[in-house]
């Protein structure tokens, strides 16, 4: 909560007196979704809910105000989920609450924002700014808002961005009685820290990016509290439980993508110190796209990646499932008016063949609705594998989302300059935004 408070204070102090410049543009929109998870198996651990069918609801509004011809923008994106079976999954977060200023040769963001770094598909190694909203989904694509002051300077030699990150967000975990929490309950409220000031320490990061011909290059450094906690077994009131500990780390990251016609060659690599010995980790892969297959409008992307992580496995570092794995995936986009997309992928442990498989399909219905199906399966998980705690938690998610939009200029616009939808807040055709998923 401190993290969100700091972010809101930054945001409130930063937005200049909007009343001085009344001629701006509002844009209000929202996504409301109904979700049902269906679990394939009975729960594996005592205390976990036995419900096969698990519903939830989410609301994600977006309020944007732009002024000075778009040079200034204030964004507010709250998020609320209500889950019948997982108390921790019922949560509220401010994904974004910031002021963006596009200046002469620099861009400034003050407040809560979401920043994504990276090029790989299976694991986002260099992406270190935002904390995972781990109750949302297993794939690490949903993030909690992060308070920040971000300044980017863009020139011919590239873009240099500096981040000051006050306020730390702790990772969200499923409740003790929920599916997907793992073998032991997690005492999220009892987290400990390396830093004396705990979640009030200030972290910093810097990033340089540039495009060299067909190569997109990025290098970054982060100094601060690790977003990944180390989970240690402690004696709790009702039995053993896992307590998160957040180490202070230094992480240097590199991300490179080389584009050669239909081939994308990708690499993400990090070096991290602060969890015991210094270690390196990398994801390297390739994506090949067949455009307009068999004279249709559809594109088929084929992906393969190798994942390596060299961290200590003696408890000094947070556990990872991706120390020596391969990933295979395929993405089919029909490029039809409904934007039908299918995604299939599997991450396989080279050592013990434990497999995490994913199947996703999404399609729009009319102008205002979207339906999605996501299946996650854990196949042949070895008892010693990091994923063994959730090996019986295979599930399918059905999601129905409704999109709302209204936008209007302000009353100081001359009538002929007004958007035709001015003063009318009604459902209109809108391309649904991807909810947290990395969009290339």
């Amino acid at each position: 909560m401190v993290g969100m408070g700091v972010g809101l204070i930054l945001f409130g102090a930063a937005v200049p007196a909007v009343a001085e410049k009344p001629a701006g543009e509002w844009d209000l929109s929202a996504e409301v979704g109904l979700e049902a998870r269906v679990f394939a198996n009975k729960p594996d651990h005592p205390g976990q809910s036995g419900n096969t069918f698990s519903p939830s609801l989410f609301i994600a509004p977006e309020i944007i105000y732009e002024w000075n011809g778009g040079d200034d923008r204030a964004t507010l994106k709250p998020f609320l989920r209500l889950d019948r079976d997982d108390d921790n999954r019922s949560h509220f977060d401010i994904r974004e609450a910031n002021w963006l200023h596009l200046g002469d040769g620099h861009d400034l963001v003050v407040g809560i924002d979401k920043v994504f770094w990276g090029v790989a598909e299976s694991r986002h190694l260099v992406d270190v700014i935002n904390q995972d909203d781990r109750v949302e989904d297993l794939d690490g694509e949903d993030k909690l808002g992060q308070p920040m002051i971000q300044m980017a300077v863009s020139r011919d030699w590239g873009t240099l961005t500096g981040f000051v990150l006050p306020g730390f967000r702790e990772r969200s975990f499923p409740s003790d009685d929920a599916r997907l929490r793992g073998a032991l309950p997690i005492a999220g409220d009892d987290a400990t820290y390396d830093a004396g000031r705990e979640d009030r320490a200030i972290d910093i990061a810097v990033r340089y990016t540039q495009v060299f011909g067909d190569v997109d290059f990025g290098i970054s450094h982060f100094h601060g509290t690790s977003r990944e906690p180390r989970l240690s077994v402690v004696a709790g009131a009702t039995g053993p439980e896992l307590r998160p500990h957040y180490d202070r780390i230094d992480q240097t990251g590199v991300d490179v993508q080389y584009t050669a016609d239909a081939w994308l060659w990708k690499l993400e690599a990090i070096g991290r110190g602060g969890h015991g010995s210094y270690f390196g980790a990398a994801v390297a892969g390739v994506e090949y796209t067949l455009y307009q297959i068999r004279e249709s409008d559809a594109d088929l992307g084929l992906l393969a990646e190798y994942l390596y992580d060299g961290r200590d496995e003696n408890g000094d570092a947070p556990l990872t499932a991706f120390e020596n794995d391969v990933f295979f995936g395929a993405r089919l986009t029909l490029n039809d008016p409904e934007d039908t997309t299918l995604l299939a992928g599997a991450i396989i442990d080279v050592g013990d063949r434990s497999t995490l498989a994913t199947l996703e399909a999404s399609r729009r219905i009319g102008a205002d609705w979207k339906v999605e199906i996501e299946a996650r399966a854990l196949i042949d998980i070895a008892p010693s594998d990091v994923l063994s705690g959730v090996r019986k938690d295979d599930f399918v998610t059905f999601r129905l989302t409704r999109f709302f939009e209204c936008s209007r200029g302000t009353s100081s616009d001359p009538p002929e300059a007004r958007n035709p939808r001015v003063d009318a807040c009604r459902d209109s055709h809108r391309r649904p935004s991807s909810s947290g998923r990395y969009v290339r």
Partner: protein
Amino acid sequence: MGSEFAYEDLVSQEVERYTYKWLRDEPCGELTCHVTERYPVYEHSGYTKQVVWTDTTDYQPRKVEFHDRKGALLKTLLFKDYRQYLGLYWRSHTFDMVNAQTGKSTVLTFSDYVFMVGLSEQDFRKNRLKRAR
């Protein structure tokens, strides 16, 4: 995606994208047009050649015929409703594309062009484009 326009048809028409051959001059409506053939340089183009009618008064394209990989006429595009802005820039406000092989058509209409809106080179850098709405 559901229309008769391919991405290739909508990107900016750079001279280096094609090689050319002038065929003839002929009347086109109330104007006179140069009729030229052009051949895409890009080896993965969907077209083997295009025939273009360009008027001799304002030098704007009026009609383009697209020929497919087998050389047959595939589509015809008409640029209609030209207006000039700032005394310099001609803009067509209606692109009318008819597929000669299927009979289907797509009409793109453009309106409310505004020039001199204050965009600079910076706004086209990657980090700014990511923030564009």
